[in-house]
């Protein structure tokens, strides 16, 4: 079940998604042998407090979150977490965030070369933080600029996590591929809102939040598939994976690996269950490895 995402070799195709697995130190329940890798909670250069509660709301087969990228900042990450990661037997990528392309670059420079950090996932798509307007991920030029700024500061594997709220994800995918991304992650949460009918205002204090969970899976499979068709670099599928069958949808649709997010909240061992289920599926159908899995990836 080992798999290569670009130059990064992983023991399995199932990773923990950013923001849903903390820094990898919190939940002791997961059978870690199954973890292909982990993307840490999104970090900014400087510490961030995050948004006022309520921060989450449940919706049909999904949840909204507006955490506001609460985090300790780069220095604390390097001091408190990276040393632990250095001893782990799976790669940890850091999900990096910024308010300008240069801030992304600065953060990368601070983290590059720190033992324990195996690569970077650029979050150009977090819908939770007010950036005074459009997200980087909505504009091919801004997305490419951020990717270049990070690429200049590191030779480590560089993944770019795409935003789903775009008319044509292929355009963004190609832009960041050209700018030097080693892989794409598709997708981040969708912007949503839920209204409190007692208070007559949004349930979340931030008003909107990112929708994750099974509800978005058909949208995510489509977008990951579109991204995979648009580029030559590998795509990691993300969105609503709770069972092996869900992950297999992304893999058949052209993804090289997957990340599991919200499902971990519900089942602290979800990643291991998904991993084992994929292995069982392959065995049941007589496929010797993931490479044998039929893919549906027409190139037009």
């Amino acid at each position, binding site marked *: 079940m080992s798999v290569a995402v670009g130059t990064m070799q992983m023991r399995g195709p199932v990773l923990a998604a950013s*923001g*849903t*697995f*903390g820094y990898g130190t*919190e*939940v*002791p*329940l997961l059978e870690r042998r199954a973890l292909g890798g982990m993307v840490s*909670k999104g970090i900014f250069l400087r510490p961030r*407090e*995050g*948004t*006022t*509660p*309520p*921060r*989450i*709301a*449940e919706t049909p*087969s*999904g*949840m909204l*979150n507006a*955490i506001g990228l*609460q985090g300790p900042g780069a220095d604390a990450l390097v001091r408190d977490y990276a040393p632990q990661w250095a001893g782990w037997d799976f790669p940890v990528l850091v999900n990096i965030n910024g308010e300008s392309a240069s801030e992304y670059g600065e953060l990368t420079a601070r983290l590059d070369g720190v033992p324990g950090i195996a690569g970077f996932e650029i979050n150009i798509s977090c819908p939770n933080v007010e950036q005074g307007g459009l997200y980087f991920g909505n504009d091919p030029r801004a997305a490419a600029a951020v990717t270049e700024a990070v690429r200049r500061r590191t030779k480590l594997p560089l993944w770019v996590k795409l935003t789903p709220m775009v008319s044509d994800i292929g355009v963004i995918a190609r832009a960041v591929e050209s700018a030097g991304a080693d892989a794409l992650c598709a997708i981040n949460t969708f912007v949503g809102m839920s209204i*409190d009918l*007692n*208070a007559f205002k949004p349930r979340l*204090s931030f008003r909107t939040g990112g929708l994750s*969970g*099974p509800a978005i899976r058909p949208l995510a499979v489509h977008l990951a598939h579109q991204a995979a068709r648009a580029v030559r670099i590998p795509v990691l599928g993300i969105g609503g994976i709770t069972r092996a069958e869900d992950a297999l949808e992304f893999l058949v649709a052209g993804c090289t690996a997957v990340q599991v997010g*919200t499902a*971990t*909240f*519900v*089942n*602290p*061992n979800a990643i291991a269950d998904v991993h084992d289920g994929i292995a069982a599926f392959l065995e049941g159908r007589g496929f010797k490895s993931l490479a044998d899995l039929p893919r549906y990836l027409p190139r037009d």
Partner: protein
Amino acid sequence: MGRGALSGMFLIDAPLTARREVARGMFVISMHAPEIATAVRAGQFVNLGWSGGPLLRRPFSVYRVEGEHIEIVLKAVGAGTAELLTMQRGERLSCVGPLGHGYDFASRARSAVLISGGLGVAPMPLAARDARAAGLRVVWVHGARRAEELCHEADGDEVIWATDDGSLGTRGTAVSVAPDAEVVLACGPNRMLGAVAERWPDAQVAVETYMGCGTGVCLGCAVPLRRGGYDRACKEGPVYRAADVDWTALPSHLSYAVTV
């Protein structure tokens, strides 16, 4: 019977074993969850999921421990709790716990007052157990709107009842009728806990927030702190020193104690 785990957190497929009504519409249900029954401390909680249930788990304080069984107390306040109350003996609940940081009894005090409003009774039997074990004399103050909404299970402690309408015990809120003590523990709606904080800044209070994961990874359960920033109710909490919480920023619309 589940998968064990490090650091005292367990994922257990626990059969429901009993149910009883302890106040009007308020029920206690029992689950067979031996590892949790052994490990749990007062103020800690379990996060429950079940097949056909809502997407996210639902957090519940552990109410009592009986041998290898744990009990929780609940009312139907929404779809999830309503479903839980239709479940039959033998049906299985997926149970993660014990979670969070509960009440501390490390001090050398000798008296404790336990103050609970409505469903805030949830952590009190275990708090009384652990307080007694720490050598404290326990007085329990329990309030509700009306007599029939009071939870009558008291495990032999001294109890002061309070009702809004005076239909049983003293007329007033649990907070207003509670005596002082060296150790003050409280649980109830967040606005009640705000009142506790004013009278006893050092009280230990169990707050309630929405929860995504219950295990510390999602940061969804943010509790605003007076010193700035947020703690996680599911990890550093749910029990806090009353004066440490920024009560004005903690949402108080949660339904845990809709009926207090």
